[in-house]
């Protein structure tokens, strides 16, 4: 790994919410032009990590460098300039509900560029073509299925030709067909547009299929990382449990609680 190819570098990051430590001194590097997956069980703060990288949340300690710039020390103006080069795909799509698909994709172009309407139209149609939804441009967000909304959001995220895209749980709640479409789309976009992709997901099989490198996070720590093959063959019990979806293992099925019998009898004792 040469340092020059690192586009995002998270160093000794600690972040807490209330008394709960979400991240405890984690470090990770994301290579340019690759698809990097960050996996872990629900509730491990994967989305939080993306928000920290995007500068929406500030860590308690540690630093995040994107393209060599320390995200949390940038002025507001410079942070916004940097964000124009970072796309983010939210789980819900986060489309603006008061405009149709076309205007949603045109939105960042209209806000950030002085392009004339015919230029914007060409660009919007190109982006919609890339996600296969050029024909849906007149629809309103409430008329879209979840998978379509995510593809539109993806078209919007690539509207300004960013250097990287962060995907927040792109596969959750998708039927097999739109899932396959999305998986392929992410891979294709990454190669054709020379993007860097960060996928946050707990969907092991599909994510591992397109990822070049995988980090697995649990309880605020990185418990495993490597290429998909390395992860597959990892000796860590934890990684094995997660990758093969075993109900019990180092991660317990039960949320911490007093013993079952005590709990059941607690009412009578009082």
């Amino acid at each position, binding site marked *: 790994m040469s340092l020059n190819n690192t586009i995002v570098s998270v160093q000794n990051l600690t972040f807490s919410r209330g008394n709960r430590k979400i991240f405890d001194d984690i470090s990770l590097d994301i290579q340019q032009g690759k698809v990097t997956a960050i996996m872990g069980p629900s509730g491990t703060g994967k989305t939080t990590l993306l*928000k920290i990288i*995007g500068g*929406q949340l500030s860590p308690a300690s540690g630093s995040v460098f994107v393209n060599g710039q320390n995200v949390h020390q940038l002025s507001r103006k410079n942070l*916004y*300039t940097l*964000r*124009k080069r*970072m*796309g*983010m795909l*939210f*789980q*819900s799509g*986060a*489309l*603006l*509900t008061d405009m149709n698909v076309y205007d949603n994709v045109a*939105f*960042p172009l209209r*806000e*950030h560029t002085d392009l004339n309407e015919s230029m914007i139209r060409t660009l919007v149609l190109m982006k919609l073509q890339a996600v296969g939804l050029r024909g849906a441009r007149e629809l309103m967000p409430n008329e879209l299925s979840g998978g379509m909304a995510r593809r539109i*959001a993806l078209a*919007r995220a690539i509207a*300004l030709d960013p250097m990287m895209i962060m995907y927040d749980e792109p596969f959750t709640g998708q039927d097999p067909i739109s899932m396959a479409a999305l998986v392929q789309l992410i891979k294709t976009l990454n190669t054709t547009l020379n993007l860097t992709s960060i996928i946050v997901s707990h969907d092991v099989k599909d994510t591992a299929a397109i990822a070049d490198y995988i980090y697995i996070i649990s309880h605020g720590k990185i418990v495993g990382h490597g290429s998909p093959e390395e992860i597959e063959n990892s000796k860590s019990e934890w990684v094995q449990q997660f990758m093969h979806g075993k109900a019990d293992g180092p991660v317990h099925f039960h949320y911490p609680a007093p013993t079952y019998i005590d709990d059941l009898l607690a009412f009578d004792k009082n």
Partner: protein
Amino acid sequence: MIDLLTQLGKKTRYSFAKLGRSSFFLQQLLMGITDVLVRPQLLSKQLYSVGVLSFFLITISGLFVGMVLGLQGYYILSNFGADEALGVMVATSLVRELGPVVAALLFAGRAGSALTAEIGLMKATEQLSGMEMMAIDPIKRIVTPRFLAGFISLPLLTALFSSVGVLGGHLIGVSLLGVDEGSYWSQMQASLDVYDDILNGVIKSIVFGFVISWIALFEGYDAIPTSEGVSCATTRTVVNSAFAILGLDFILTALMFGDI
């Protein structure tokens, strides 16, 4: 006892923290005004949804309030044989008090709650976050135009409310109960002062417009991003706006008409 004090302390701290957040929010939204002035089409869309769509409610309410004033006023004034003064009574009570206050209360219920719910839901569905990640400041793009729209709409709606009210009073007093039309208008004209009555009423409505828009937008922006959070925030908008309107109305009246 200690528990009670702890609770009280917590509540106080929470209120002050919220006051701080809302002041910071106000500062940020005011800083966005120049950006909105450059793009007036953002404002016109909001003026429509905040102002024009409240038009019907304000007109009908103004008409009925004026009609009730005409009726009640007539019964009282005719006891003293002073029913020619009906026009003055209706107009003064509308322009000074009822116009600004009732229009503001209605506006808070109609437009304020809608603003809170809209912003709150935009937050809950990550639209605000999404905008931020597209390097677009949601306060400037979403909040400031709505604030200006509320601030501009309410004084105009108040003027409409009072005017329609005067017509409502006329409808009942003159057309139905037979008060002399000439004295209805001429006494009103002679007694109402442009500065003391009309301008003071306008100042009130400007203050109310500012405060309602601020409360409504802040509650939406500060809402907990869940269905329950947005519903609570909407309720708080209406309740807090009502308190603010009535409290400020007293203070403003004391300042304007009292000899303090």
